[in-house]
């Protein structure tokens, strides 16, 4: 029994979502979804858990605050300047530095976290990717046993797929 890939394309986001839902319900093979736009609906249908990038941003934010405290407190003790008779460690301006560094490091961690977790940049295309999935078509690529192929194909067509082809027949663009 060999595994084959079935490539299907959709013009409508909703139909793509419907196909994803049915594929999940039927529990056949595993599949990849391609979308030309960021789609919450597809994300929701795939049922993927929340991205761990949030923890990276939190880590970045906390390290930003700590860096800010280290810089402000450290430089203040290094150069004990009497500014208008204020206490040496005056928190109002420190808040600004800590806040800015929290935003900066949180943002940098988030940016590189997204790149890392989504595997970007990459030099190899995901199997079954078609140029149209970056233009105006949604795509689902299902890998399943050959025996299940006919069922999967009819499932995709019923959901409204414009085109359903097996990988070996596909004409890459």
């Amino acid at each position, binding site marked *: 029994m060999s595994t084959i890939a079935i490539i299907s394309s959709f013009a409508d*986001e*909703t*139909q793509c979502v419907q196909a994803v839902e049915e594929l999940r319900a039927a529990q056949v093979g595993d599949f990849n979804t391609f979308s030309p736009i960021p789609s919450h*609906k597809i994300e*929701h249908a795939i049922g993927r858990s929340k991205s761990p990038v949030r923890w990276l941003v939190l880590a970045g934010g906390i390290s930003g605050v700590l860096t800010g405290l280290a810089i402000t407190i450290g430089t203040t003790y290094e150069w004990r300047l009497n500014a208008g008779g204020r206490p040496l460690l005056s928190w109002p*301006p420190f808040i*600004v530095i800590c806040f800015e560094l929290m935003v900066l490091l949180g943002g940098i961690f988030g940016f590189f976290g997204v790149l890392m977790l989504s595997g970007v940049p990459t030099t190899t295309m995901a199997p079954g990717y078609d140029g149209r999935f970056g233009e105006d078509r949604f795509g689902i690529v299902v890998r399943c046993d050959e025996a299940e192929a006919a069922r999967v194909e009819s499932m995709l067509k019923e959901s409204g797929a414009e085109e359903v082809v097996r990988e070996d027949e596909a004409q890459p663009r």
Partner: protein
Amino acid sequence: MSINLQRAHRERAAMKPRAVESVAGTTMKTVAGAMIVLGAIAFVLALIRGGATIAWEAYLVNLLFFLGVAQGAVVASASFYLTQAKWGGSTPYRLGEAFAPFLWVGFFLFFGLYFGRSLIFPWVTHPIAQKAAWLNTPFLFARDGIGLGVMAAASFAFIRVSRSDGARAWTIATDEIELPPHSIRVFAPLVAVLFAAVYSLIAFDLVMSLAPVWRSTLFGWYFFAGCFWSGLTAMALTAAVLRGRLGENNLFTNPTVMHDFGKMVFAFSVFWIYLLFAQYIVIWYGDLPVETFFIVHRVHHMPWSPLSVACLVLIWLIPFTALMSVRAKKTPVILGTVAGLGLAGMWLERYVLVVPSLSLDAIPFGATQFLISIGFLGAFLISAVPGLNRVAQAATSGEPVGDEAE
């Protein structure tokens, strides 16, 4: 219309909520009427028995607070058009406009201050020569009266077009990217810009001038950002309360809608503290006695210090921490409680802004001030009765709601 939206329509029609025509009626009017009478009696008794200063302080604090809530909520409705918000159909717009009749009540109550002017405004009895051209009785009442009148008239003109069929159709047409009707595109920005101008003026004239030597350029902005936030929290609180009263499947039982209210309460609480800090840091750096005393009196001076801290906790710390998670925003009990505490905090903030300028060493809060506040609350509630019934109708009429699939 996409297949998805058609499906959403069908599902919604199948579980159509029982249409509710009225949530606020005779009982609410009676209770609110009794509150007004109590407040009026307390006010008159205080004037007769020599507590006039205390009575006028409470009058001003409550006028500022309730006008702020009513106007802030209307501006929220206008800003929903400016941001082309369709996340709750027409209901968030009706909710924002529900408290608007108080704008006219507040407009007339504002002129009542004329009779208490010598007790409220220090510059009436001790004029400041350099500022006399601006701080004098006729000019103040003329400019603020005109400001509030124009603001109320513009708000009502906006509400009239907002309730028209064209605007309603736009709010529920979730699959179109058309702009709102032309009349909306005139009045919504007008209300927003007027709000910034008029409420800055109110802040300078009715709050800052109580300490006539003090100034902070950002104060007007800070004040009307607080008004806007109190309008949003009043809307979130109303949504959380109505949710249980409108039967099954009303709009407020939709978690995404409550999530959106929660996001706004969260976001503009942060904006409020941002403006507070932006003023604080400038005054702290300058360290000029003529500027610092306003903050020192409120933050480092007993008995006001704990009240100022309470404002920070109620308006920023609690909303920020409690509403950080999505689940908390979607839980009406949490959102409603945070919004209720936030409104209390905003009232307290108005109190802390106004009263220490007039009574530095003691908090004059007692039965008189409490009952006057109750009276204002009654006037606010009775003004909101027709608007709340409109909200009930909008929230149960089964209009399609935003992107239901999300």
